[in-house]
């Protein structure tokens, strides 16, 4: 592999509130788990260096707010994402049903070049708990129907499957990036701090 310009992978974690998005990220990045629940406000990210396909890349993992009342801010950071992780709680059927809408909203807001083949990964979290409600088969069926999304069952508490899931996430994100580079050598990222982003008036709207 030749040297590439971009070695930053942007990963977004989505899902209903209290399914364990922050815990998964913490388990993966810091190897820590806390039983206390603290709702995420807005969004935040962590970075971690990983080796994928013999390459060192920096993974930028964005943790988001699942609670609707903390979604008062925008989601411009979806743009330029390389992979999206959809998390649900295996003990909460509703969090599984909502995966559809999380996926759709993500595709609309991020508007990737090839929405059909954008890499998603689905994680069924909290498998350490006894009162399981969503079966593996049901989850796998859903993933197959959405263009064969990789599916993992994890536990952020016990650290089950977390490392493996994120390894797949990094691999898929990197592939997505490679594909993007095939199409266009110079991927146009969202430049958040350029001046032309400032809408002085509505005429800036190019549509």
């Amino acid at each position, binding site marked *: 592999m030749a040297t590439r310009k971009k070695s930053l992978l942007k990963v977004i974690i989505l899902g209903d509130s209290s399914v364990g998005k922050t815990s998964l990220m913490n388990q993966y990045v810091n190897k820590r788990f806390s039983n206390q629940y603290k709702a995420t406000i807005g969004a935040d990210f962590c970075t971690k260096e990983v080796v994928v396909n013999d390459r060192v890349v920096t993974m930028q993992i964005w943790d988001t707010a699942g609670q609707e009342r903390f979604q008062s801010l925008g989601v411009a950071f979806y743009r330029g994402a390389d992979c999206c992780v959809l998390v649900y709680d295996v003990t909460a059927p509703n969090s599984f049903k909502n995966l559809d809408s999380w996926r759709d909203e993500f595709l609309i807001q991020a508007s990737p070049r090839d929405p059909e083949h954008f890499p998603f990964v689905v994680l069924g979290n909290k498998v350490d708990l006894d009162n399981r409600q969503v079966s593996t088969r049901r989850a796998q069926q859903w993933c197959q129907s959405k263009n064969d999304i990789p599916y993992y069952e994890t536990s952020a508490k016990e650290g089950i499957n977390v490392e493996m899931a994120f390894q797949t996430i990094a691999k898929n994100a990197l592939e997505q990036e490679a594909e993007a580079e095939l199409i266009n050598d110079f991927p146009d990222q969202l430049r958040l701090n350029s001046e032309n982003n400032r*809408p002085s008036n509505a005429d800036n709207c190019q549509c």
Partner: protein
Amino acid sequence: MSSWRESITNLPTAVAQFVNESTSTASSYLNLSHSSSTVSEESAPQHTDYKALPIPASLVKEQWRLIFTSDANSQDLQAAIAHCRDLVLLSDECSEERRWLVRHLVDLRYSLQELEEAQAVANTDVVVLNAIKSVVGHHFVPHHPNTRNRLQAAAKRYYCDHCAGIIWRVVQAAYICSDCSYLVHQKCIDSVQRVCAHVLASDRQYPIADICPEIGLAAQRYKCAECSTLLNFKNSWIEPRLCDYRGLYYCPSCHWNDSFIVPARIVHNWDFTPRKVSRTGLQEIQLFLDKPLIRLEEENPKLFVFLEKLCTVKKLRQNLVHMRHYLAACKDAAEQKLVDQQLGRRRHLAQSNEFYSIGDLVQVESGVLAEFLQGVFKVFGSHIRSCEMCLAKAYICEICSNNEVIFPFDDGCIKCDQCNSIYHRVCFTRKNMICPKCVRIQERRLQLQRDLSKQSKKGEDENAEDSDSALEPVDTT
């Protein structure tokens, strides 16, 4: 020699200090000698003179345990405090009894504190000047005007709020209420009748909303609303003076013809002309001045139609509220204490755009507030547009899907009230003001309902199968 001369020049102040101290020491010794009796004497008239709050009828039978005779000591007081506290817990919420009891409890605790302080003085023989005296809700502390500039201090005259006479600072000790700034002679302190404006204000919770609610002199029985002096037009010493805030008539010693803005006139008529108000009215308005209590748009929506200034301020405040959401979620801004540093004690300005204080309204009229908010808007805006985390939480107009980021406080943008999405105003108008996200949410809801009805039709077969399969993975993991 020179030191001798210095001491001579310093003599007048030394004398003044001595006289001052001796009067206050004398007074505190006076207190001391009757320490137990003064307290109880004080607390006794408190209840009879508390015109605003007589003892509720239901509590009369408890009176003997709550209100003391002249032989009250600290044990009695402690017992009364305990009993009063128990009664508070037993009384109904928001009832007259509870209000009276809570206030009485506060008074009792102050009395006990006074008594203990007096005893401490007796034990140590040291005069504690900061002892607080509580009379009809006032908390009096010794008054020491800022004497850094002696000329100014000499030029400034202080008047007693009770007898309206001058307070001769050199020879007379004075007390000031730490809550409402009621200033009083040492000699007048025990005959104070006006209930502390702070107590009234906290009872009322909201400045009087009616413009000068006058009931007429006859309804007042031609008596001063505060000290019950008979009023008479023939004699200028006891002429009735109308308080524009309270709408009541007062005697000249309770109404000094002070002019001040009146909240009700501002809210209803946007009228900032100072009106004549009584001393108690003045003290009350001043206490309300900085409190964000007025929901102006609810009280008087038409003001926003007629006053462009008010609309500008409202828009600015709305924008600041949006910005505050960003700053609250941003670590950098929290570290810099951006909100605190810009707004300080006027946080309410960026917390919602509903509540105004009287001070805010005065500043709206003078244009100071709009300028101030504009400055804050600029500082907040420059942070948000230069902070990577804040920019990441911007919006993208999904109608045109342009890469340009937009914010709720941008001029050309519009927010969907239902789902909080932000669009370009032009794009949104092109879509006939129908929010695409709301449409999707609606569709999903319908889909869910359809699925549910299907499931219920299919019956129990699937349910059984579902539960079977639900058990499987538990076995495997």
